[in-house]
């Protein structure tokens, strides 16, 4: 018993997955997932929640060792599997299984449902065809594809979306995994059948003491099925802890924004949250400091303001064409360059003092902490320079039963 309990522990420690992005002579590196750590116990569902591009799917693939992390460690059942060779991994694969979003794409259209479900144990070997068939029938019964003989010879095209997803789950369960990575398992299914698939997922967890990594963009679903939740933003976990605590009282401003943005099926109820402005920035070159700071409605002076934030501010300011005309001597926006903590623009034959005064005037009109984060506005080597203070180091902190990465705490 002791062994089993110890075996059911996965640790992702300081994992850093850098994905290379093709194109161009200089291949930019995307830190799809950057130094994240979490643990998952048997009988537990951990939700990885975030918007597209936050690294949640990459994390799932790294956990399954479908891709290898650039640095850090993955411990599965107490064993470091970070650098295992494909052949060594094969022995572990039955114990860690994926469920994907699109059941139609996950099933071979030329194989019957029965064949698809038996296939994994036939690949693993050591069973007769008859045994495989029996195991498949049993798995189909467990996921509610009953009567099994009615489905076993059907092709995926003959099944509804919900039935196909049941077949995909049966195919994962036939190998008796201890860990299932479910990547958006109900996102493609219609509302009226989602609940049934979620119930099945919960039911299998209880029956087999499964551990799930439940990857989703849908906070409402996550709230319903997950024991713990990790909120991801641009490759980082910004808040992780018990689902109940996080939903009752989210701490990270990003978590608050995500929860507040969900449309509520209750007419007349106004959203009571200030939406973050803009969209998730490019992961090739994430913002300094806290990656959420440019969009954060409650950002502080020390959150990581930098040159490009100022350039973006100018661009937004000059959407108003009157203002753009009035401040034409400071433009055009294309003349500005953001270099780390600095934003600069060539002075040419203009009056440096007047330009500095113009920038100061703009900064005085800024709402929010950006202006206060400016260290200096000056002309240096015939360039107008706006320089920002260095951000405060961001360290994850324990806040009321969960871990939050935010300078507010």
């Amino acid at each position: 018993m002791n062994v089993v309990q110890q075996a059911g522990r996965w640790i992702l420690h300081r994992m850093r997955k850098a994905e290379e992005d093709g194109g161009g002579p200089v291949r930019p590196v995307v830190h799809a997932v950057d130094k994240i750590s979490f643990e998952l116990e048997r009988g537990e569902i951990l939700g990885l929640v975030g918007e597209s591009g936050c690294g949640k799917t990459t994390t799932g693939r790294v956990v399954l060792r479908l891709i290898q992390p650039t640095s850090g460690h993955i411990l599965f059942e107490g064993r470091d599997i970070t650098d295992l060779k494909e052949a060594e991994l094969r022995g572990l694969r039955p114990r860690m299984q994926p469920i994907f979003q699109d059941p139609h794409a996950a099933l071979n259209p030329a194989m019957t449902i029965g064949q698809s479900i038996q296939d994994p144990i036939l690949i693993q070997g050591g069973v007769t065809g008859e045994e495989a068939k029996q195991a498949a029938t049993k798995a189909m019964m467990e996921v509610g594809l009953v009567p099994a003989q009615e489905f076993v010879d059907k092709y995926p095209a003959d099944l509804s979306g919900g039935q196909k997803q049941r077949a995909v789950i049966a195919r994962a369960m036939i190998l008796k995994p201890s860990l299932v990575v479910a990547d958006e398992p109900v996102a493609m299914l219609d509302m009226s059948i989602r609940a049934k698939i979620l119930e099945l997922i919960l039911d299998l967890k209880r029956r087999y003491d499964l551990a799930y990594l439940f990857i989703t963009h849908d906070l409402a679903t996550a709230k319903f099925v997950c024991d713990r939740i990790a909120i991801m933003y641009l490759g980082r976990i910004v808040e992780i802890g018990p689902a109940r605590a996080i939903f009752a009282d989210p701490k990270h401003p990003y978590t608050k924004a995500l929860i507040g943005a969900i449309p509520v099926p209750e007419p007349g109820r106004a959203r009571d949250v200030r939406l973050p402005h803009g969209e998730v920035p490019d992961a090739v070159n994430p913002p300094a400091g806290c990656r959420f700071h440019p969009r954060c409605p409650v950002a502080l002076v020390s959150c990581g303001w930098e040159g490009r934030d100022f350039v973006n501010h100018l661009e937004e300011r000059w959407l108003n064409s009157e203002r753009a005309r009035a401040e034409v001597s400071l433009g055009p926006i294309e003349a500005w360059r953001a270099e780390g903590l600095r934003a600069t623009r060539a002075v040419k034959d203009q009056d440096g003092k007047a330009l500095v005064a113009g920038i100061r005037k703009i900064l005085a009109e800024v709402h929010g902490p950006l202006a206060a984060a400016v260290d200096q506005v000056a002309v240096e080597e015939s360039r107008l320079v706006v320089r920002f203070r260095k951000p405060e180091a961001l360290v994850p902190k324990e806040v009321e039963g969960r871990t939050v990465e935010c300078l507010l705490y």
Partner: protein
Amino acid sequence: MTGALLEARDLSVHYTTRRGPVKAVDGVTFDLRAGETLGVVGETGCGKSTLGKAILGILPRRTKVEGSLKFHGKQLLGMPEDEYRRMRGEELSVIFQDPMTRLDPLMTVRDHFLEAIRSHDRSVSSDDAQERAEKALRSMGIPPSRLEYYPHELSGGMRQRIMIAMALVLRPQLLVADEPTTALDVIVEAQILDILRDLRNAASMALLLITHNLGIVAETADRAAVMYAGRLAELGPVADIFRRPIHPYTQGLLASTIHLGTKELRSIDGTPPSLLDPPSGCRFHPRCPYAKEICTTKEPPMVEYRPGQFAACHFGRDFL
């Protein structure tokens, strides 16, 4: 009802497929008033997108459309294609789910705008068109410098805002939005919905909002039309549809929607039917917990159970 911008009467759309005719929309009747937002909700294959395409006149050729569909009292069905084309953009416009598939990857944002504007009015000069495009972008909070960008250089939310700006550049009276935020993340979705709401308030434009997401309808629409297997199950003011639904399908759909307040998982038994061979009588009867003999044989008519709230259920009175 007079004063309606759009009137659909017994509208049916039948696709011809190799496996037989598919009754994607079957006998749908509703009105859309000027400045009103009507949310059309339902699950995959209920006919909601086909309904949108029928209004825009962009169904595949050889599709059988019957009934009546009037815009400003003018019959749209059978309208000559060149007249329809002029109306699209100027009077009716559309935004789709995935803007990336609707923008030409080889055209810049500017090219798209110039095409949209000048295909309707050749006399507009390039400078005028450019100015209108810049103004349209600014109104969506997009810097005019993005006019030089190609679609792949823009984020998903930016693309959808550009699609909206393009759809509105000719000031249509009716905008059909087919799952306009489904491809977007929840925060950007909320931003786009804010834009659509502001537009509605400012421009007195009617909006037909097609979505599978009940939350979006509750937040954005004035009235909701619930579709099931090609037919209208229920139609009425949003407050009534959500607080006191009549049709068992509407009840089931609301109960199975997972939201932050969900305490208990509910679902509707069975799966949506094939439209090649829809069930007899009430199409929902095989999945309906209250179905009786009559439901299997007789199609229920739309009945006004409360002022403005219609439901197609033989036993609607029992759910009042």
